């Protein structure tokens, strides 16, 4: 059922897409991007669930469950920590900071 050429086609096209979509990233975002990509390969959780769900011996089940735990940590932790990083970028409040500096410097400026 799995025709290797079809899979190869999907693989090669995905390589080009993968490089293309991040080609214009600014260095500021390198860390979050790496972390986000890291979370995406946590999708191996799907594979871990499949093998654990089809395990026929206790031994296989245990190994499968370990894989499930590890993969979940990868996926969930990855997305959460990426979000935390990106929160730092958006939570800057330029408005109040700039205003207060302006008003203070105006007060300073007046008496001089």
């Amino acid at each position, binding site marked *: 059922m799995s025709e290797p050429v079809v899979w190869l086609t999907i693989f090669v096209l995905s390589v080009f897409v993968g490089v293309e979509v991040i080609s214009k990233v600014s260095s500021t*975002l*390198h860390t979050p991007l790496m972390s986000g990509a890291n979370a995406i390969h946590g999708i191996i959780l799907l594979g871990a669930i499949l093998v654990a769900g089809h395990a026929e011996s206790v031994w296989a089940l245990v190994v499968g469950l370990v894989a499930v735990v590890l*993969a979940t*940590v990868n*996926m969930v932790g990855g*997305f959460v920590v990426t979000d935390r990083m990106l929160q730092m970028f*958006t939570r800057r409040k330029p408005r109040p900071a700039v205003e207060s500096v302006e008003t203070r410097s105006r007060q300073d400026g007046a008496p001089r």
Partner: protein
Amino acid sequence: MTTPVWVQLVYLGCAICFILALKGLSSPRSARAGNLVGAVGAVAACVVVFFYAGIDNLVPILVAVAVGLVVGVVGARRVQMTQMPQLVALFNGVGGGAAALVALLELGELAGVSEGGFALAATAFTIGVGAISFAGSLVTFAKLQDLMTSRPVVFPGLPVVFGAALLGALALAVATVVEPALWPGVVLAVVGLGLGVLLVLPVGGADVPIVISLLNAFTGLTVAAGGYVLDNTVLLVAGTLVGASGTFLTKLMAAAMGRSVVNILFGALKGGSTLGAGQASDRPVRSAGPEDVAILLNYAHRVIIVPGYGLAVAQAQHTLRELVDVLGDRGVAVDYAIHPVAGRMPGHMNVLLAEAQVPYEQLKEMDDINGDFKQTDVVLVVGANDVVNPAAKSTPGAPIYGMPILNADEAQQIIFLKRSMRPGFAGIENELLFDPKTTLLFGDAKDSLGKLLSSVKAL
């Protein structure tokens, strides 16, 4: 087991989510939304599998997911922002480990029925590279967490051992394909673990983040191969996307530091670039007290701050911001010069300063501010070293030679806040410390900045 069409369509949707996620993550405005889209895709793909694949052992699996969920969320929420690079390394490592385990189990199944060689080759690849990624990531974690030395670890004969292990891994992979059985796979996993350790040991501390990115790409390719083994398109697409973009990102990061990936991995093996003596120098320097430095700052027209990892370690971002605010009120023009690899990873410093609510407009990227140093009265270097080391421009033998640096040496006065004379992360001495224009203020960055702040206020 054939996958129903509707499931394949859901998988296609998930793959699109991942592409949009990566696309979103490359621009500051859409980054957070992009990450969310990726998370939705990943969760959707994992939920769907329960509805068609005839999953047994439902309860233990859900318990395992719950355990992973708690560990992942708590780890990601609790970690200090300064320790983020090693956390990403750890998450990457466990992902690689999971992929290797999945492939081992699949090998156990394939060993009975003789299937095509492609699937077996992909299985062997997943086992070997997954194990490399797992062990390598654990070593990078140990290096960044200071559980072991961050200097390159090299022993005589390491290249020989590494080469032998690599050949052994290839032989085992071939054996797995020719004569499918579980035991060569298990041995392959063990050899892969050894390879991962040997690969990362010789890498110096400053280069570790680039290796994390590389191992991240490795795990991506592992997951892609796992997708082929399990007949699952979404694994293939997601893994390949991460593998390709991760490899490209590794190149971008290395370029930002003026290094090549080959040099980072194998530079220490050539023996040429022993990364400095790593000892405190006893050459004379000029040091001063906080009051003197406060005067320099207060009567300057233009000041540029060069923040480094030491600032973050001392948790001094907030004190620094207060100092800059006070100087701003006194009419001093202050900017922050952010080196692309300030902190420990590209973009790390922006995250840390944003956490301290430093206005975004004051953060200047290297290329935008490097021309300004000539007209700058005082450069205040807080907990940084390598990113202003002129050896990167002047000493061809230095390990950081060729790395773009901030031209702090062109300013009128340079002030270093340092804990000691120990060299920076790259382990090499900084000539700028001995420059006649340079003044040192010794002490913990937070202490020193606190004293500076009160001294400036008192003026």
